[in-house]
């Protein structure tokens, strides 16, 4: 391997395995998220798996590669967007009567496009949770150790 590849991240085996599996992990997270209303799973579990795919990328390739895919500002934006989508869907329930009212057509049970607002709420929760967990990991990685001297006064 060249010296350029050896700069950041872990060994070639880990990097190759991560490159091959990160897409599948992300796809599995999206599957868990989108089928949250018809099978076990949902917004929280899907969001965690989506965040884990980016964390896997960061562990294998170092922080610069992962932060170029998903910068800090974008992470912060998605986290705020998730909370705002959830709140606005809940507030839109007042058009029919009360908070968290399921105001869209429900559709057939046990189909993918059904259950009204619940898939949208799952999407909002997964944005919030995935961005939040990735932000926690980034905060731990980027925290610098600067051992300061015990200054008197």
């Amino acid at each position, binding site marked *: 391997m060249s010296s350029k590849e050896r700069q950041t991240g872990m060994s070639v085996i880990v990097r190759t395995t991560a490159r091959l599996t990160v897409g599948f992990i992300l796809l599995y997270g999206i599957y868990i998220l989108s089928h949250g209303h018809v*099978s076990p799973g949902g917004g*929280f579990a899907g969001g965690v798996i989506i965040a884990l795919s980016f964390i896997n990328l960061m562990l294998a390739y170092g922080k610069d590669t992962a932060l170029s895919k998903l910068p800090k500002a974008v992470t912060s934006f998605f986290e705020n967007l998730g909370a705002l989508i959830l709140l606005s869907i809940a507030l839109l329930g007042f058009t029919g009567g009360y908070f968290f009212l399921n105001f869209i057509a429900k559709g057939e049970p046990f189909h993918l496009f059904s259950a009204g607002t619940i898939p949208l709420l799952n999407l909002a929760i997964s944005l919030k949770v995935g961005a939040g*967990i990735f932000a*926690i990991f980034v905060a*731990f990685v980027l*925290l610098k*150790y*600067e*051992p300061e001297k015990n200054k008197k006064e």
Partner: protein
Amino acid sequence: MAIYLLCLSFFSVGLYGILRKRNIIKIIIGVIIAEYAVNLFFILIAYRIEGRAPIYSPNAEITNMVDALPQAVVLTSIVIGLATTVILIALAMRIFEKYGTFDITKIRDLRG
């Protein structure tokens, strides 16, 4: 009944880690183990003999399901546990940054 005692011993392992260890990281691991023991206890008292998962699915006859309420509580508890673990680790990192050690007996610089 024996399985509840096993759960209690699992909790005791975590309590031993909290009370007896001196390394902050090991104390945090003790907190996590105790928390998971409580989660496991909640799931165990919700179990029914021959019960199945409380998920309504098509073409499945409704027999006896396990109790769904403690599972919802434990799901919330796992999320809160994640947040408290993050706070504990952040505090441990700050302590290491200031004192240069994880040993709680050597953190005695209280002059400010």
